[in-house]
């Protein structure tokens, strides 16, 4: 197992900067996710770690050994591709044995190891088949086996679940997490699916346009996004984001957007005054709001415009002046279309973003 360190890693394709001075540290045995929309540079980073692409600038260290010039075959990484990339002319057994055969292991050792990983992922009865005879989920397991069989120092997973159907995805993601914990391999998962990243990884690095946005524990990213991009990218249903202005209305500090006004606590008022800004983007997660039938402190009124039952919970769309909110509430509440309600956000969960996208927290925590 190895610790992985990226220092100011940069990759340019012609004039396009795919990865922009990315610095990241992954602890020995840790499972991290690189999360971002397509084109954010996450797969490019992965391929640089694997040695397929050479970085334009910057360094890649495995256990403090510089890897920049080391060819892929000597990096001891296992890589699972989004397309699985199985060798179509080899049986499942030969596919899994391929890395070992290249490493000139003895026939007996190869046989033992192939069966061992096959048992681990429950594909032992598929060993004689050709890849074209397998389902997507089975191919995915074979690809995982092939990556694991050489006992890599670092395991790289490139969107390993995106070609599976929804149900299989849930099973497989638990299985990969279990395997990673069992084997303790340093693992980097690349994904555009924030649920995948949240459920599987110990830490998540959010990338956008080649730039690292935030790197931290899943809950940190969820509760304290450092900027608007992270806030909008993480969470499902997504965070409510409303452009607001800070004003004093009837002697009370408020966030205002047209007819919508949210009265604030004095604590928030102080923070905002300190920032010297007036225009913000207000962020609040759907589950951090209470729906009330009577007026209360620090609440705003709105009308129910749409109700989406989610099974266990209900997603209620609220129109409050020109602002629109999605509120997650329990299904026991008797709420009907057209109801006039009061919405009370949990003030401690409010997120305010400065015009440049940074969270206001960056100011008072710095």
């Amino acid at each position: 197992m190895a610790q992985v360190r990226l220092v100011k890693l940069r990759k340019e394709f012609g004039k396009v900067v795919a990865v922009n001075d990315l610095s990241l540290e992954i602890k020995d045995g840790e499972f991290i996710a690189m999360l971002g929309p397509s084109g954010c540079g996450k797969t490019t980073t992965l391929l640089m770690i694997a040695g397929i692409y050479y970085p334009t600038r910057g360094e890649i260290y495995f256990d403090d050994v510089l890897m920049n010039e080391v060819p892929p075959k000597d990096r001891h990484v296992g890589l699972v591709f989004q397309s699985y990339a199985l060798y179509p002319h080899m049986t499942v057994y030969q596919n899994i044995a391929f890395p070992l055969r290249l490493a000139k292991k003895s026939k007996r050792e190869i046989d033992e190891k192939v069966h061992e990983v096959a048992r681990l992922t429950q594909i032992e009865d598929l060993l004689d088949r050709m890849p074209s005879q397998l389902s997507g989920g089975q191919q995915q397991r074979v690809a995982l086996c092939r990556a694991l069989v050489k006992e890599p120092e670092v395991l790289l997973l490139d969107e390993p679940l995106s070609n599976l159907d929804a149900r299989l995805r849930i099973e497989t993601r638990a299985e990969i997490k279990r395997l990673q914990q069992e084997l303790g391999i340093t693992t980097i998962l690349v994904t555009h699916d924030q649920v995948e990243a949240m459920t599987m990884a110990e830490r998540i690095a959010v990338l956008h346009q080649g730039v690292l946005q935030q790197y931290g524990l899943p809950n940190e990213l969820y509760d304290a996004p450092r900027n608007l991009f992270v806030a909008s990218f993480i969470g499902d249903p997504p965070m409510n984001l409303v452009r607001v202005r800070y004003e004093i209305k009837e002697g009370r500090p408020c966030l205002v957007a047209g007819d919508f006004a949210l009265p604030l606590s004095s604590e928030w008022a102080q923070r905002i005054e300190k920032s010297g800004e007036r225009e913000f983007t207000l962020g609040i997660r759907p589950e951090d709001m209470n729906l009330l039938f009577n007026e209360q402190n620090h609440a705003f009124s709105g009308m129910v415009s749409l109700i989406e039952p989610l099974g266990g919970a209900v997603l209620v769309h609220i129109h409050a002046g020109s602002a629109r909110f999605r509120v997650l509430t329990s299904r026991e509440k008797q709420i009907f279309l057209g109801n006039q309600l009061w919405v009370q956000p949990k003030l401690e969960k409010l997120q305010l973003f400065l015009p440049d996208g940074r969270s206001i927290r960056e100011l008072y925590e710095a």
Partner: protein
Amino acid sequence: MRRSVYPLKTSTLEKIRRRERAIKVLLYGFLFITALPIIIGYSWLFLNSFSERLVYGLIPEQLTLKNWSFLWKPPSPYYPSLWRAFANTLILGLGMVITVVGISTPAAYVLSRMKFPGRIEILAGTLILHSFPGITLLISLYYVLRTLGLLNTVVGVFLVKAGLMMPFAIWVMKGFFDGIPWDVERAALVDGATRFQTWYKVMLPQVKPGIGAISILAFLSGWSEYIYVITFIHDKRSWTLSSYVNSIISDYRFLDYGLLASTALFYIFPVLVFFLFAQRYLLQVSIGGMKGGE
């Protein structure tokens, strides 16, 4: 009772069926007529080779094996041994296969996968070379071969032929390599293969149909080569079957049709057998490589 929306009488059905049959008969008739010249040509060859003479040009009289005696003794002292010519033709065909496959597969891989200055120019250049009529090069090639000391040798002919076939072979093979996803190659590199091992163990097995196809085409083109053979080879020891047939037609004082027919059949037969086994590889070429998802 609800009546059917399609009240077809048996007679109507019968009529439709009859019309379909008529169309089929017409189609096959047309195909038969267009194929007739070829059928007549080959039957003439076949019948001629086994009979003393043909009445009205097509009806054999007195079956004989006399025309096939060239198999064990040359028809006249003028001719070299048939088996020597056969061996030379085989060498010409196989030489083509080895040269064409041996050069076009690695070349096509590099052109398909690697970026280097001049790549586009090389690709365009091969197409231009492919569009040259080979016959325009006859005289210059003659000089080149003479300078190299390859005149009058089968090796000289298959090198020239292979060179002219190379553009086509490279393009076909490039198509097959283009069809292999990058990820498969990357997987091999990460799995511990060198670039060469990746090419040899992972890429080559996947372009087997392409190799099969160009091998067949190269072999057939060498086997049936005529113009370069009679231009560059005069020495009887280096004759191929096409020189042999050629000399029966042109160099003899009178034309022995029986001998010509049986030699021609002998010349065709191996290719025919070969083709029967190999045509499924040839059919892959038009598909242009790997089918998706396999």
